[in-house]
């Protein structure tokens, strides 16, 4: 046991109240109660942490200050120093990003005969997809239907989701599962082959498909292996895109990559570009810790915005209710929602439940923030606030050994720091988890900029103002495949000759000047900087 003694004493309270709590169910909140809780405590409502954009397609919209600074920044490129007339690579489809959506898009474009290049900032597969533990939704059981799934998604997203995108998501879902199975993904099943499915926050049916608690990793390593098996797909690792290339007409025609090994630029001419760069948790909005991958710095939003693409829902971020609050070494890392799906309750310092554990993520996160700001949270030795997540309840409810069997990754993560989660509760606090918004797309992943497609977390609209667990893995596969198909088909119709320019960048610089936006920031930022700042 590695909890320091002050925390040990507090755990006694959790143990004392457990027997009573096993019998009690915290009531679900009514719609107006949810609304009130969100307005009072959700980070999206902290007005002082937002800025209003002054330039670009979303001028007048608000977004977190950290993102606004990057969207209104300059590029570090000097167009005169790049030999655009002699590209290093030519392809039909350039996929920027090597996570779930990027790989799904590349594989599908390859299936449709396109010459594909994947450019990725780190290694292929280094992405948020790899870290998704909880599961992937699909309405494939008898008591469920795409329509029921649709309603759950809309309720989670505050009824502001783009209906056509949700329709695509829920309709393609079962086929996405089958596609993954055919690639060799191993889902948790009963002996008769039926899927073992569980609830997630905000689901009205048990439709969460899992691969133990390595669901994202299992999907990602399979997709990566398949990409590496395709002779024709070229993968450029450690080569993030730093700017899109456009024709004089403003249509997308490729990208400038930065080879991080050689610190040199690569010019890629492409008939179509798919942005699949994922999220932006590493921008640490409002100073929150994050569960995101090291590379999640919102590059795709910046590139698309400068090329004229409209963004959607960029004023809402998802704070996963249960990030690790202790031990200090893993603060912000995810405690999968599956823990609550399996029966663990959230408990304050008095050992009392304060929220139904499977409300939607924004509601649960707000409730935890409320407990902590009203002094019913637990102060950790690292100075972070948290509440208890009573994991040993899972063992009582579902039998001994359940935690080790269902949550091996979680068990391992805490065991490394001497905490046995099947015997001791853990401390959690919301962590910056997901970029609800992104580049606005239609159901075929097109944007308002010709020949620019977007899929996965970099796109916005399908999840509205809040995403349900298990719909991001689904989103990456469904829209990754749709983008791959659409881009491959579009490439067949576009002529080979494309005049590569950086005209959009020159236009952007003029705009900044016109609007009086003075910036010393260059974007995209590519990687966070965690080196110690010496005083």
């Amino acid at each position: 046991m590695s909890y320091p003694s002050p925390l040990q004493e507090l755990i006694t309270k959790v143990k004392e109240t457990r027997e009573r709590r096993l019998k009690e169910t915290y009531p679900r909140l009514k719609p107006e109660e949810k609304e009130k809780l969100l307005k009072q405590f959700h980070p999206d409502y902290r007005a002082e942490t937002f800025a209003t954009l002054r330039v670009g397609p979303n001028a007048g919209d608000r977004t977190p200050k950290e993102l606004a600074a990057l969207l209104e920044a300059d590029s570090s490129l000097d167009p005169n120093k790049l030999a655009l007339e002699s590209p290093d690579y030519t392809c039909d489809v350039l996929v920027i990003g090597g996570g779930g959506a990027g790989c799904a898009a590349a594989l599908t474009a390859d299936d449709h005969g396109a010459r594909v290049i994947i450019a990725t900032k780190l290694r292929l597969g280094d992405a948020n997809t790899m870290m998704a533990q909880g599961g992937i939704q699909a309405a494939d059981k008898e008591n469920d239907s795409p329509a029921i799934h649709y309603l759950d998604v809309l309720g989670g997203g505050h009824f502001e989701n783009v209906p056509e995108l949700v329709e695509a998501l829920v309709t393609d879902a079962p086929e996405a599962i089958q596609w993954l199975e055919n690639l060799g993904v191993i889902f948790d099943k009963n002996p008769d082959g039926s899927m073992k499915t569980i609830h997630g926050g905000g689901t009205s049916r048990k439709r969460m498909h899992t691969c133990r608690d390595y669901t994202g990793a299992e999907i990602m390593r399979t997709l990566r292996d398949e990409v590496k098996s395709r002779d024709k797909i070229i993968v450029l690792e450690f080569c993030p895109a730093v700017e899109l290339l456009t024709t004089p007409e403003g249509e997308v025609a490729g990208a400038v990559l930065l080879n991080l090994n050689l610190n040199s630029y690569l010019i890629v001419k492409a008939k179509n570009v798919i942005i699949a760069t994922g999220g932006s948790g590493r921008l640490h909005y409002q100073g929150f810790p994050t569960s995101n991958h090291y590379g999640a710095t919102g590059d795709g939003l910046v590139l698309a915005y400068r090329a004229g693409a409209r963004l959607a829902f960029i004023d809402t971020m998802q704070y996963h209710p249960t990030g690790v609050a202790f031990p200090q070494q893993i603060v912000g890392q995810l405690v999968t929602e599956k823990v609550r799906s399996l029966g663990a309750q959230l408990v304050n310092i008095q050992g009392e439940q304060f929220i139904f554990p499977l409300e939607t993520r924004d509601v649960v996160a707000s409730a935890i923030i409320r407990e902590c700001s009203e002094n019913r949270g637990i102060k950790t030795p690292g100075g972070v606030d948290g509440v208890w997540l009573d994991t040993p309840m899972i063992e009582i409810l579902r039998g001994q050994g359940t935690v080790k069997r269902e949550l091996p990754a979680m068990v391992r993560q805490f065991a490394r720091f001497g905490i046995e989660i099947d015997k001791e509760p853990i401390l959690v606090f919301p962590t910056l988890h997901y970029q609800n918004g992104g580049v606005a797309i239609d159901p075929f992943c097109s944007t308002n900029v010709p020949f620019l497609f977007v899929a996965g977390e970099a796109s916005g609209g399908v999840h509205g103002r809040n995403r349900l667990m298990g719909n991001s893995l689904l989103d990456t596969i469904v829209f990754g495949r749709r983008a791959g198909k659409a881009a491959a088909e579009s490439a067949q119709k576009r002529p080979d000759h494309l005049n590569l320019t950086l005209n959009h960048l020159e236009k952007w610089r003029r705009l900044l000047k016109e609007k009086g936006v003075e910036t010393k920031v260059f974007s995209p930022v590519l990687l966070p900087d965690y080196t110690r700042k010496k005083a």
Partner: protein
Amino acid sequence: MKENLIDIYIMGEHHQVPDSLTILQAMEYAGYRLVRGVGCRGGFCGACATVYRTTGDYHLKFALACQTKVEPDMQLAMIPFFPAHRPRYRLSELKGTADEVLRIYPEMLRCYGCNTCTKSCPQDIDVLGYVSAIVRGDIPAVADISFDCIMCGLCVSRCPAELVKHHAALLCRRIYGRNLAPRSEHLQKRIAEIREGKFAHALAELKGLSKKELQERYAARDIEPEE
């Protein structure tokens, strides 16, 4: 909280860092802005596989830099990229039999059971156990034992027979998932129903509802009980 500083050595260079940090955080504390050797920072991606020993001890130890706390006198090195062999194959062109795995990875038969792989696994996987299962053709066992593999390749780096275990295990898992795991009838049925347009009407109706009507439908949903 007062920081307790300890001595560590990164690529031979001396640094003092707080003892509460992970290896990855200690490198950043020392001033390294990492490009390679860093990934999810949560123990899932295998990017930060690292080798170390402590001064005066000849043993080499293995860890994920994001999941391991620093110790006094650690001598650290990052493994930037391990060039593991991976033949090309198309799963869809395989029949899904055990001998195909050994045809693609014939070197697996060279294992002489030294168990160094198991000792070097930061995920505590019984690597030798699944290598044995590969050799005897038990693909379900390989899939089960190797499931938590994060593909860091540390087992390969230490193997005297130079076996690429993590890639061979992944091939087995993919064969299991595609060919051997029982299929879900309800999934096939639902896909057929969707293709027939069974839900198109219900979805069209929902798409046509106002926000208020949707809210009412949502509030009135029946929720599948937990058990």
